[in-house]
């Protein structure tokens, strides 16, 4: 089961349709079972049942999650594969000691792959949809997998499948979520699974 975590400013918000449902639809299309939880409602049982976790993005003006990182501290202790998208990438970076800096970007940009990794295999440069007010300076123990002219676009923990992507893969890059789901299906393990 893939646990899809809604990071929007409140449970069942108007933003859920935009930032959570599209991810849920992509995961469903892969055949993987999923469960959606708002970040304020994630229970130990959800983490226990999950094989992987996706942390979804939020609206451009929504940074409530960043005031609530304490509640998301479990990300640091997580032994499951994690894919953090935009706000989710910021959550992953913050959990592991990275920095979050203002860096707004809206619209399509070219993303260049700079690090070897299963998810980005076969990709060199691809157009991606950006919608962020902040970007991250990756934590020390993370590798940079992809960049744009503006900021780091993808990171992975040096010892396992804990990912962050700044672009929104639900727009024209669904393959990122599909490959993450497939990797989870194959790996079924913790950070050392890859």
């Amino acid at each position: 089961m893939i646990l899809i975590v809604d990071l929007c400013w409140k449970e069942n918000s108007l933003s859920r349709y935009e930032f959570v449902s599209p991810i849920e639809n992509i995961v469903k299309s892969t055949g993987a079972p999923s469960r959606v939880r708002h970040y304020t409602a994630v229970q130990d049982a959800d983490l226990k049942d999950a094989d992987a976790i996706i942390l979804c993005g939020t609206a451009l003006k929504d940074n409530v999650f960043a005031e609530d990182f304490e509640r998301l501290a479990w990300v640091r202790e997580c032994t499951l594969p994690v894919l953090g998208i935009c706000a989710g990438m910021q959550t992953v970076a913050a959990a592991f000691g990275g920095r979050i800096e203002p860096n707004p970007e809206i619209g399509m940009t070219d993303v260049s792959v700079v690090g070897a990794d299963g998810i980005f295999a076969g990709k060199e440069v691809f157009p991606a949809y950006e919608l962020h007010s902040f970007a991250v300076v990756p934590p020390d123990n993370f590798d940079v997998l992809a960049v744009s002219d503006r900021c780091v676009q993808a990171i992975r923990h040096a010892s396992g499948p804990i990912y962050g992507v700044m672009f929104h893969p639900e727009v024209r890059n669904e393959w990122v979520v599909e490959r993450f789901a497939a990797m989870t299906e194959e790996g079924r393990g913790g950070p050392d699974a890859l």
Partner: protein
Amino acid sequence: MRLGVLCSGGKDSLFACWRAMQKEEVVCLITIVPANPESYMFHTPNVRLAALQAEAADLPLVEVESAGEEEKELDDLRRAVLIARERHGIEGVVTGAILSVYQATRVQRICHDLGLWCFNPLWHADQEAYMQGLIDEGFAVIVAGVYSAPFDERWLGRRIDAAAVAELRAMAEKYRITLTGEGGEIETFVTDAPFFTRRIEIREASAEYKNYNGTYRIEKAVLVPK
């Protein structure tokens, strides 16, 4: 949160409005009326009838005229959003964008510049579920324009009911068109919605059609009890 909904009169903006109403407070509709029928941003047939829809929904309408030239119309949209903020105190804007990065990006930028929230509640929605939702939730939608093969004249003014969706589905499988018309293949007009206190009755309309390109122009319409 007080929201203004960008409204072209079509199904996407009014369904987005309905979703927004279920979560937040919609305080006005915002309509751009382009002079250019080829407008990049704004759907055009019958857009002036958004005033009737606003009346049916008991919502004030902010209407701004635009020359409809690419990029300049963004200034007109910004002006309309500013008026909505001044008159109605909106804190955010809602759009009916489904797949258009062009449209979504530009509205996001305007909202960002003005410090407003931006919501796209149909963004990458499941097309089947959305079209079924329109029917199940009581929207009355007609086809107001066709701009692509294989749409023939019969589609102009046709109600999008279960039979029409089934036909659209078959066409989408055979041709390179989207089920929702998001690719610009069709435009629609909403005559009734669950939040309308009265429905729109079309009394006079005319159709023009040539070579897979046609519009259904509503000449006279009135509000009647539901």
